């Protein structure tokens, strides 16, 4: 019988193949503390692909595209499984979109996007490692500058 380090969930979403050190960051952007059903977080699990990986299982929740885009910025190698009755009904890899709107704040305090309730808009100039350029002030942001 296959042994699972992190128990299966009946219905919900599984975010797998997270770089282990980014697991808690992904958990944070998914706002898991507000979930009411089972949430399982595993770190430093063995992975053929990553060496060590993280995994997050959220019961009763189907994650949406906006959340997938956010995950892609933090964990570009992650994959998402949608679970129903313990079966995987949909599986896909996260992908960084070409334009990211309303997710990442521009790190420049003098940028207009931080005023007047303006929605942030960033162009992805490099996907891995992530490099974003603000549509408004043109400043370039790297992974270390991201405020999600």
């Amino acid at each position, binding site marked *: 019988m296959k042994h699972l380090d992190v128990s299966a969930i009946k219905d919900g979403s599984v975010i797998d193949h997270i770089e282990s050190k980014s697991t808690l960051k992904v958990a944070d952007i998914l706002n898991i503390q507000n979930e009411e059903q089972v949430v399982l977080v595993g770190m430093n699990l063995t992975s053929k692909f990553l060496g060590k990986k993280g995994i997050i299982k959220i019961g009763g929740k189907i994650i949406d595209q906006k959340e997938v885009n956010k995950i892609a910025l933090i964990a570009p190698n992650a994959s998402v499984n949608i679970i129903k009755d313990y079966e995987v009904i949909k599986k896909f890899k996260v992908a960084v979109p070409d334009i990211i709107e309303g997710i990442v704040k521009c790190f420049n305090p003098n940028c*207009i996007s931080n005023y007047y309730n303006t929605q942030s808009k960033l162009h992805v100039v490099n996907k891995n490692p992530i490099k974003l350029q*603000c549509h408004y*002030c043109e400043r370039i942001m790297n992974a270390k500058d991201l405020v999600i």
Partner: protein
Amino acid sequence: MVSFKQRDIISIRHFNKEELLYILDLAKKMEQLDNTDMLKGMVLGSLFFEPSTRTRLSFESAMKRLGGMVIGFAEPGVTSTAKGESLSDSVRIIEGYCDIIILRHYLEGSAQLAADVVNIPVINAGDGANQHPTQTFLDLYTIQKTKGTLEGLTIGFLGDLKYGRTVHSLAYALAYFGAEMHFVSPNSLRMPEDCIDELKDRKVKCHENESLAGISKKLDVLYCTRIQKERFADPVEFEKVRGTYRLSKSVLEEIGIKNDLKILHPLPRVDEMDESLDTTDFAVYFNQARNGVPVRKAILASVLGKE
């Protein structure tokens, strides 16, 4: 084919070499063309949320010399901004009163935001420390006019390179022309790392230094900038760097320069350039300011589709 018709002029990054040269060629023709009715019946909305002398007045002069009219304000205290109106709302309203907007604003990205919400062309006349593309066009025009070419020059940038938006735009544009660049500034006012990275990606030879000594003899052009007090949140930090560089005739003699060096400055100056330089052949900054009119005439005419 190059066309500027109804285009926004937001960032020098949006233009290729051919387009830059197109405006410079048109500016040359505009020097000979005055008091026409080319833009008769057209209205320029001149919106200045930050102080300006040269940019505002040269734009207004350019519009009037082409037969157009100007409305606008030179400080936001007299507008609904003082009542808390957002920039988006302000430009949406003003869009109904004019054919083109020129905008200066203290927040970076403001011109792009304005361009995104209105259906008439927007020209960025300076957005915080970010871009000032029409200044770059006139800087290029001045260099081309005084040096005879833009190709393969060695350029020194001196002063506040961190907040100096004219430096960022000009360095980006000169990268098209194979320039070698020396950035001379106090350590706290160095060129932003992302600007340097971008230039290096474009194969520009970049050098950083805290002093002109040792490099001054290599320079074809020296682009000086003022250390901008208004960009410092902390006045103590400003005091640490004010007066770092004071160029004068005797300083140039001491450090040694090429005989045909040209010194540009977007002005205003404070104490970084002594008046003793004004009467030398090196100084081209007053002509540079004057070049604002033909260059802005070229931009207005081409954007409004009348060139």
